């Protein structure tokens, strides 16, 4: 069945056009208002041949509208559901792709860290570093290197190196550690975590001791 386009008289206003559509809809037809060159049209899909135009109609055109262009609720829902499914599937594939891409190396994967040069360490006496996410310090006493984590074993505050007292002090609960990491005072239950420090050429390197490779 073909569709009808009713070209309305120029003096017809949009309200009247809408009421024509309402009348047609009430009769079970699918119709909507369109406008072209500032003239209003009423498009009636699958209009029966014996449909009589209202007096407002200037001219009637019979056209064949291909099914995929008919503005039916079903067409709209189909394309809407397809678009929605495409968006959902696309996001799921995107999430999976990003997930499969391994994250950048963090401290957990770090084997060895180049902290500083031996010359700088001799000048300052100590150097701080970040082993992945864990802050640490290397202290030089004579020829010996002490490498310790700065994370207090009590509640995870960052301890500070006091060059005067030659001790590490925790500001949170008055913990005191010596250069071996041992607890001298305060509530910390365990010594500070130690790193293995070594010198290669002029560079000072630290690594985690006894780490199980997996």
């Amino acid at each position, binding site marked *: 069945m073909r569709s009808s386009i009713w070209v309305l008289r120029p003096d017809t206003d949009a309200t009247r056009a809408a009421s024509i559509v309402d009348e047609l809809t009430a009769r079970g037809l699918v119709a909507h208002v369109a406008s072209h060159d500032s003239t209003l049209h009423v498009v009636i899909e699958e209009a029966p041949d014996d449909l009589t135009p209202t007096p407002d109609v200037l001219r009637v055109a019979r056209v064949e509208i291909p099914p995929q262009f008919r503005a039916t609720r079903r067409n709209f*829902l*189909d*394309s809407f*559901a*397809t678009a929605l*499914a495409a968006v959902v*599937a696309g996001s*799921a594939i995107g*999430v*999976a792709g*990003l*997930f*499969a*891409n*391994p*994250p950048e190396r*963090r401290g*957990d994967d770090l084997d060895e860290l180049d902290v500083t040069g031996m010359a700088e360490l001799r000048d300052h006496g100590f150097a701080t570093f970040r082993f992945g996410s864990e802050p640490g310090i290397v202290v030089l006493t004579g020829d010996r290197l002490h490498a310790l984590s700065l994370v207090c074993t009590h509640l995870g505050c960052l301890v500070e190196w006091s060059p005067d007292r030659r001790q590490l002090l925790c500001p949170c609960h008055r913990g005191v550690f010596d250069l071996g990491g041992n607890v001298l005072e305060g509530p910390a239950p365990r010594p500070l975590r130690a790193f293995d420090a070594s010198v290669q050429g002029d560079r000072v390197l630290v690594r985690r001791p006894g780490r*199980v490779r*997996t």
Partner: protein
Amino acid sequence: MSAAGLTRVLDRPVLARRTFLSDPGRTAVFLFGVEVVTGALLALYYQPAPEASFRSVQLISNAVTFGWLVRAVHLAAANVTVLLAAYLVVRAFFRRAFLGPRGLGTWLLTVGFFLLMLAFYFTGEALPWDQDAYWRATVTANLVADTPLVGPWVAGVLRGGADMSGVALVRLYAAHAILMPWVAYWTIKRMRELMRRGAIG
């Protein structure tokens, strides 16, 4: 899915005024698909070894892009699947699905599906191998061991020894990720066949 395939799904006739629970088979297939996809993704990072598994789970949750999301979806779908399986058992009971010519088979299948989903849940829960997981797995294994006759043997197979160990973790993982998905696949398939014939649901 192509537009035509989607339209076919949308055009499938359903009874009026029914919800997604009126076709639990389809819901189960959907949830199973979600679990397979997210599980396969999690398996890209998960390491079933006592010293590595917790760290690998933390890596997924904290470092991997959308790792928290994939983990959360895997867990959420698992929760819904257990609820669905429980719903099927309760429904079968009140509809007296255990009566009739195929009653015993469908009843055992429904209850078996529920137990399988519980087993999925318990094995999956143990995989992070933190204190929670370890002790829950220990408690579950002890419960299994108290089953008459076969209990000690099953618990021994689960644990891979007298106590919970790294062997147990590998076995739980293998059961969760390799063995049980196939059992679930055939169970859901069989249930959908019976549902189509009207024996269930």
